[in-house]
């Protein structure tokens, strides 16, 4: 049974959701498939860009966050997905060998009007580097299941 439900989230709550070492080979493998620009693919070519070296694709950063949330956050929750993402800001590059943490801050919670078994939780997710500098923020408003027991208890009252 999922542990976290909509009722477990309150605005202002901050959760650390895992950390990852980002390797050169995964940066290059992702870029070769989905974002083959020199700054994500080739160390020598990347030295000429404004970042001065190889950096991860911003889309790779989104995918890394998704995987971290999947492993360390969603697995414990009655997560029902999101129909989209409000905004993503790429603030600083992720370089090979960096350790990245994910952090979730609850911005607001709202019960669904049409579905009494569902609620929305708006989060700001951040990927943060070892210097505690956010490298990416992502704002999303996914759905979570509500506690069936509480719902039925309230319905019957």
């Amino acid at each position: 049974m999922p542990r976290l439900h909509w009722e477990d989230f309150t605005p202002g709550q901050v959760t650390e959701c895992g950390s990852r070492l980002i390797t050169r080979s995964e940066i290059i493998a992702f870029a070769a498939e989905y974002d083959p620009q020199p700054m994500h693919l080739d160390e020598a070519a990347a030295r000429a860009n404004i970042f001065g070296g190889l950096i991860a694709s911003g889309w790779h950063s989104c995918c890394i966050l998704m995987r971290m949330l999947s492993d360390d956050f969603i697995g414990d929750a009655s997560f029902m997905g999101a129909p989209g993402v409000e905004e993503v800001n790429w603030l600083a590059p992720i370089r090979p060998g960096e350790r990245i943490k994910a952090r979730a801050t609850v911005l607001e919670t709202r019960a669904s009007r049409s579905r009494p078994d569902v609620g929305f939780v708006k989060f700001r997710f951040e990927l943060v580097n070892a210097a505690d500098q956010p490298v990416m923020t992502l704002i999303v408003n996914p759905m979570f299941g509500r506690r069936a027991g509480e719902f039925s208890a309230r319905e019957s009252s």
Partner: protein
Amino acid sequence: MKYFEDIGVGEISDIGRHTFTAEDIKGFAARFDPQPFHLDEAAAARSHFGRLCASGWHTACVWMRLLIDFRRREDEERRARGEAVAQLGPSPGFRDLKWLKPVYVGDTISYATEVVETRTLSSRPGWGVISIRNTGVNQRGEPVMSFISSVLVESRERGPHGS
């Protein structure tokens, strides 16, 4: 890439299309979005999607790949005509990403971009920012994805090999 000054609001480009196979969908999901409805046909059949469908991030990453390939082809044509090619700078991010319908196995998604805003940057002379609306439409003509992204584009005043 065109220079910033040569890019106009309303310009539309068909950047390419991609057919999502089961292998493709499961391979992406296993690495980045391992949810049962992206990984396994039987689990997907029991889910609210009803069938195996692609991670929304997968649909978006394919857009990135097709856009890069499209820009590369355009740049090669410009060089063949003897025209200068503008550099692209970093992207600050994107907004309003909507996954409008699931992308199922065998769906072919056609991707397009439309320029929605251009503005100069006082903080970075020689560069401008363009915002583009990116869309994916399936073979039945149904929009499956939409978002607005931004990227820095070199301006002509910076010159072809600007300082």
